[in-house]
C-alpha cells in the first residue's frame, strides 16, 4: 500500500502487505485497546447474574462454563452461563475495570453520589451493602445510571444486548427520562452510531429512538465478533497514506503535518482525506460541543468532519492514531505462553489492521518481542504508568496448557482478560 509505513516483522508475511514503520515504542504511551468490554452474565439454570469484564467475551464465556479461570462461577449447578449484555467501547483496561466495579457496587461507588449510601450493618467489620437488588432490572437500571454518570458519560460506550428480552428491557429503560439526575444529552442505546438531533440543553441533542444499526463487527453473536482492529484498517491506511504525503497540512491549524510526529488524524469515512492534528481536531470538536451545550468538557465525543462534513466519533478517530502510534507492538499480540510483565501496553493485533500477517513467531522475533516488552515495562515504570498486571489482584494462572493462538495476520491478537474479576478495584 502506498504511503503506508512498513514495519519490520519477525513473522512471515504471506500477504506481503506493508507493515507500519516501527516507531520508538518506548515513547508510545498506553494505546487504546482494541477491545474491552463489561458483560452481564446470566445463568441459564437460575436467575443469577454476574458482572465482569474481559477483552475476549467468547473465551471468557467458556471460562465461566467450566474451562477454568472463573472462580465466581465455578459451581456446576448454575452452568451454563451466557452473556446477555455487553458494554463495549472501553478505551483501556483501567476504564473497564473501573466501570465494572461501579456496576457491581452502585451503592458504594463514589461515582454515583446521588444514590444514598446504605448504613453499614452492625458487626465487627460492617460492610455496606453493595447494591439494593441483584435482579436483572436493577442491573440494567444501575447500568443506565453509570452510563450517565459524569465519570463515564463521555466514554465511547455502547450497550449491546444479546437477547431479545434484554433488548426490549434495555430499550424500555433507556427511553425513560432520567429526571433530575439527567445531566447530559447523551443517550446510549444499542447502536453503533449516534446521530445528534440538534443542540440544546439537557435532554436534547441526540435521538433517542432506535436507529438502524449499521453492520459492524460487533453485531451478531459474540462468537462471530471480530475483536481485532481489522475494521479500522481502511481508515488507518487511508490516514497513513495521507499523512505520509508530504505537504499535508492540518485542516484546522494548517500546520504542515510531519509523519514522524504521529499526531495527525484523518477522517475515517469513505474517501475523505481530511487530515488534522489530533489536538486541533479535538479542540474543534469540543468547540462544537460547547455550541451544543457541552461546555467545560475536555474529551470530545463527536464531531463533524471538516472535509466531508459527516459526523464521526472521536473514538474512531483516535483509535486509528493509537494504532499508528503503537507500531509493531500495537499490532502484534502478546508473547505466546509468557506472562505479561509490567510496562507492557495493550497491543493491537496487526491482523486487524491488515498490515501484519503473523503466522508464527520465530525465535528471533520472540527475542525482539521480549526485548520490546521489557523496554516497555521499564519505561512504563519510569513514567509512572501503572501496569495492567499490577491492577490484577489475582492474575490468571498461565500454564503451559493455555497457549494463546498463534499470531497470525488474520487472527486477532487479544489482550489478556482481566484477571481481577469481581475484585474491589480501588483505583480511585
Amino acid at each position: 500500500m502506498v504511503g503506508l509505513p512498513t514495519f519490520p516483522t519477525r513473522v512471515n508475511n504471506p500477504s506481503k502487505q506493508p507493515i507500519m514503520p516501527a516507531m520508538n515504542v518506548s515513547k508510545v504511551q498506553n494505546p487504546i485497546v482494541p477491545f474491552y468490554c463489561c458483560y452481564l452474565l446470566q445463568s441459564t439454570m437460575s436467575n443469577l447474574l454476574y458482572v465482569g469484564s474481559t477483552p475476549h467475551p467468547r473465551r471468557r464465556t467458556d471460562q465461566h462454563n467450566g474451562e477454568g479461570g472463573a472462580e465466581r462461577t465455578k459451581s456446576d449447578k448454575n452452568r451454563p452461563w451466557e452473556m446477555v449484555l455487553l458494554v463495549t467501547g472501553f478505551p483501556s483496561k483501567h476504564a473497564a475495570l473501573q466501570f465494572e466495579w461501579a456496576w457491581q457496587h452502585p451503592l458504594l461507588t463514589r461515582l454515583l453520589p446521588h444514590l444514598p449510601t446504605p448504613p453499614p450493618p452492625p458487626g465487627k467489620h460492617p460492610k455496606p451493602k453493595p447494591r439494593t437488588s441483584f435482579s436483572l432490572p436493577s442491573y440494567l437500571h444501575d447500568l443506565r445510571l453509570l452510563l450517565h454518570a459524569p465519570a463515564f458519560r463521555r466514554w465511547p460506550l455502547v450497550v449491546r444486548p444479546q437477547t431479545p428480552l434484554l433488548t426490549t428491557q434495555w430499550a424500555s429503560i433507556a427511553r425513560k427520562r432520567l429526571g433530575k439526575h439527567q445531566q447530559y444529552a447523551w443517550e446510549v442505546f444499542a447502536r453503533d452510531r449516534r446521530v445528534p438531533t440538534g443542540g440544546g440543553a439537557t435532554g436534547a441533542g441526540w435521538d433517542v429512538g432506535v436507529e438502524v444499526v449499521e453492520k459492524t463487527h460487533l453485531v451478531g453473536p459474540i462468537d462471530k465478533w471480530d475483536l481485532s482492529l481489522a475494521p479500522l484498517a481502511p481508515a488507518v491506511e487511508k490516514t497513513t497514506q495521507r499523512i505520509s504525503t508530504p505537504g499535508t497540512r492540518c485542516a484546522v491549524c494548517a500546520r504542515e503535518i510531519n509523519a514522524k510526529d504521529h499526531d495527525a488524524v484523518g477522517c475515517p469515512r469513505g474517501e475523505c482525506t481530511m487530515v488534522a492534528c489530533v489536538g486541533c481536531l479535538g479542540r474543534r470538536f469540543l468547540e462544537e460541543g460547547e455550541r451544543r451545550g457541552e461546555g467545560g468538557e475536555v474529551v470530545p465525543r463527536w464531531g463533524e468532519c471538516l472535509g466531508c462534513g459527516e459526523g464521526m466519533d472521536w473514538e474512531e478517530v483516535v483509535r486509528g492514531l493509537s494504532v499508528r502510534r503503537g507500531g509493531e507492538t500495537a499490532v502484534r499480540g502478546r508473547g505466546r505462553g509468557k506472562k505479561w510483565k509490567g510496562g507492557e501496553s495493550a497491543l493491537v493485533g496487526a491482523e486487524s489492521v491488515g498490515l501484519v500477517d503473523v503466522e508464527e513467531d520465530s525465535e528471533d522475533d520472540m527475542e525482539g518481542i521480549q526485548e520490546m516488552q521489557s523496554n516497555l515495562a521499564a519505561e512504563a515504570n519510569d513514567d509512572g504508568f501503572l501496569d495492567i498486571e499490577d491492577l490484577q489482584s489475582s492474575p490468571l494462572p498461565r500454564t503451559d496448557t493455555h497457549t494463546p493462538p498463534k499470531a497470525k495476520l488474520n487472527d486477532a491478537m487479544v489482550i489478556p482478560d482481566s484477571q481481577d474479576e469481581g475484585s474491589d478495584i480501588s483505583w480511585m
Partner: protein
Amino acid sequence: MSAFDLVILSSSPRDPTDSRKANRPKYGEPSSDDLPSLFEVIHQTKPKKTPLRSGSQAAQIPDDAITGFTSVAKLVKDGVYTLKPKEVDVWEVPSDTENTNTKRKPDRSQKRTKKQNLKVQEANPNGEYHPRPKRVPKRKSDECNDSVLKGVELSLGTELDKTATPLGTIEDHDPLERPDLPPRDANDNKMKPSSRPRKERRRKSSRERSEYFSPAAIQAHSRRTSPENINTADLSRAVSRKSNWTPPKHSELQGDVDRDILSGSVSPRPATDISSFLDRFAYAEADATVLSKSDVGGEALTKRRRIELVQPLNTPVSESPPAPVPVPIPEPKPPQVAPAKKKKGVRTITEIATAHYRLEPEQPPIEQAAMQSICNVLQAGQNPEPKPPSKATKRKKTGKLPKTNATITSKRKKNTEPKKKATKVAKPKLVSPKTVAERLHQQNILFGTASQLAADESPTFTRQIIQAMRESERDAPPVRRTSPPKSRFRRSVSGPSRNLWAAGARENEYDADMSLEEEPVSTKVSGFPSWSESLGLSGPRRGSSEADLKQNTQTSLPKSGEDEWVDIDRLMRDEPQTTSMDSKTDTSLRESLAGAGSSNIGLKSSAITISSDGTTPPRSSISSEGPFAFPSRHSSVRPTYPRPDAHLSQARLLSTSPAKKGRGRLNNTTEATIVNDEDVFLPIEDICDSEEGSTPSPPRRNPPPKKGAELQLVSGSAAGRQTGYLQPADVEAVGEFVLTTTEGTDAAFLKWVDHLRATLFPEITRRVKASTAPERDTEDDPRPFSWHERIMMYEPIIIEDLADWLRDEGLAKAEMPAEAQTGPYGSQRQAAKLKEVKLKAWMVQKWCEERSVCCIWREKQRWNRKQL
C-alpha cells in the same frame, strides 16, 4: 404297763372348751403303796429345785386337785408347809427305794428354784410331798411316763414319798437334790468335795422305771387322790405353774377353769391313756388359728403374754373388728385396762390460725349423737355441742382470737370430730352466684408485708398505716434549687408529711449543713412574705437539736384525704388544742422559731403534723398565712418563680425517689415552686431543676453540626475526616486528602466540592486545554502528547502527575472558604473567609471524574490509602 392314771401337771394352755375339763388329766393312783402320795410330796418342804417347765414332763393335775391361788399362810395353817427348814441332806439318797440300782441325779433341767418350791408348797398346803418317781423306761410309753414323772418330780420340787407316792418312791435320791451342790454337813455347812464317787447321771429317758410309777405307789396315790382326799393345796403347784404360762386366748376362761378346779367344783379327771391324754391337749380349731397366727409371727405363745391391742377410738365403728362380746364382769372393779392413749392430734400453726375459719362439715344428727356418746365416754363431763360455722372465716388473718376454754374445746373437738368422720365428708354447700358475689365484696383482705401483718395490731390500724405509707410515697413535686449548694437556706419544706423520702433526705442534708452559715438568696416569691421578716429573725438557726429534726421527720404520717397545707403559725397558736403533738416537738419548734431563721424550720413546720398515735392533726386548722404557709394542692393561686440556677447539684438529692415515680402526678398536685430564702420557704417537692444553666458538661469532641452554616473545607487527612472538625491550619498540615466512598455522602463535603467545581475546576480545565506538548527527545521519536491530547486519547491519567503539572503551571493554590471555627462550649465563631489552599490531588481527581477522565493513583498511594 399297768393302767394308771397319770397326773400330769401340764403347763400348756388348756382347752377352754368343756372338753378340756373332760380331758383333764387326773391324778393317777400311786404305783405302790410305799410311795408317798403326790400330795404328800407336794406338801413336803423340799429344797430348791427348779420346777419342770416343759409341758410334756409335767404331771397331770389330779381331778381333785385344787386349782387356784392360795397363800402361803393358808398352806402353813393347813399344815402343808412348815416354815422350818428341813434338814435334809441333798446328797442323801433314800435307801428304801426299790428298783433303783443306780443313783440318779436330778436333771438340771428338772431342778427347781425357790419360787417354784414355794409355789409347790402353796399348791400343796397340806404339806404332802410327792417326790418325783424315778423313771424306768421300759417302753416308749414308760419312757414317756418316766419323763413326765420326772418332770413332775422336779416341778413339784418336793421329795416324793417313796412309800406313799402313787407314782412310785424315789429310792436312789431325792429328785430335789442338786448333785452339783456341794455336800453339806449336819450343820448345813458346805463340805469340801472329797473324793466322793461321781454319781452317775442318767438321762431323762431312762429305761429304769421309777418307783413312783410302781403299782404300789400308784395305788397309794389313787387312794390319796380320791376325790375325798384331794385337797386344794395338792394342786396348787400345778395351778400356779400353769398360771405362769402364757395364758391362752381365753385366759379368763382358763383362769376360771383353774379356779374351779382348785375350788373343787371341777375335778380333774386323769386320762386313761397317754395318747388320749396327750391328744386332749390339742388346741381347738378356733385357738389353732390364733396360734397359727402367732406362730407365723414367730412368737412363742407359751412364754409371752399376748398383748391385745386396744382399738383406737378414732377408727370408725364399721371398720373396727368385731368387738368381743361384752362379758359381764361381776367383779366390782373392772379390769383396769389402760385406755389407749389417744394420739394427740398434731396441730400445725396453720391449723391453729385457720381454726376459726374452718367450715365444719355438717354432721347428721344420728352420727352426731353417736359421736357425742363416745365423747362422753372418753371425756368425762364434757358434752360439747358442735358450733355452727362462725363468722371467723371472714376474720382477718392478722387478728388473734381470744383464747377461751370453749374455743379450745371446740378446737379440739373440731379437730377430733373430723377425724372420726374422715370417711364421711360433708358435701360442699352450694350457694347462689349472688351470694358468692356478695361474699366476695364483703371480703376485706388486708395485704401487707410480713412485718406489718405480724404486728399485734388491729387490722384496721394496719391498714391505716399502709395507706399512710402509700400516701407518703406519692409523687412529690421535684425539688428546685434557687442557688448553688452553698445557699442552703433557699430550700424549704412543703409537705414532708407526704414525703418521707424527702424528709429523710432533708434530714441528712440539714444535718450536714447545720454548722454552716450562708446568706439567703435574694429571690423573692410573690405571695409569700419572708418568714424571717415576719419573725424578725436573722442569721442561721442555732440551738436546734438534730434529734428533734430526725424525730420530726420520721414519724410524720399524713392523713388520707387531707391535702391542705398547714400554717405553722396557727399550729403555734393552737398548741393547746393539738394535744396530740409531742411536747418535745413543741419546745423544739419554739426554740427554732426563737432562734435564727433558717429553712430548716420549714422542715419542722411540716413535722408538726406528728402525733404520738400516728394520726395527724387536721390541716384545716392551720391557716395558709404566715411564713410557713405552703400552697395547698387545690389552691388556685400558683405563683410563678424564677428559675433557679441550674448549678444545684444537691437539690437533686431531694428529688430522687419521690420525683422519679410518676412525675405526671406532680402536675396535678402541687406546682414546683422556688424558694426565696429571705421570704418564704419553698416546698421542697416543688423545687425543680432548671433547664437552663446546666452544669458544665465536658467539652465536646465534635461540635454539633450547624444548620445553614457555610461549607467547611475539610482537610485531606484521614484524621481530620474522622473528627469531622478541622481547623484551617489543619488543611495545610494534613497530607493529601484521600477521597473515600463515604465522602461523597457527606453533605458538607459535597457542598465543598460544589465550591471547587465552581472555582477550581474551570481553571484546571483551562490549564489543561492550554497545555502544550513537551519537547521530543530525538527527532525520530514521536511527538509526545500534551496533557490534553493524552486525555483525548483516553489515556489513564496519573493524578499525582497532573496535580504536579498543574502546580507547575501556577495552579498551586485554590481559594476556599475558611472554616467557621466553633470553639468549645459553643463560643465565638469565625467569619467565613477565603483561604488559599494548596492544590490537592484529590481535587484533581474530582476534576477528572467530573470530566470523564480516566484517572488512577500511583501504586504506593493506592496501597497506603487502603491501609488507613
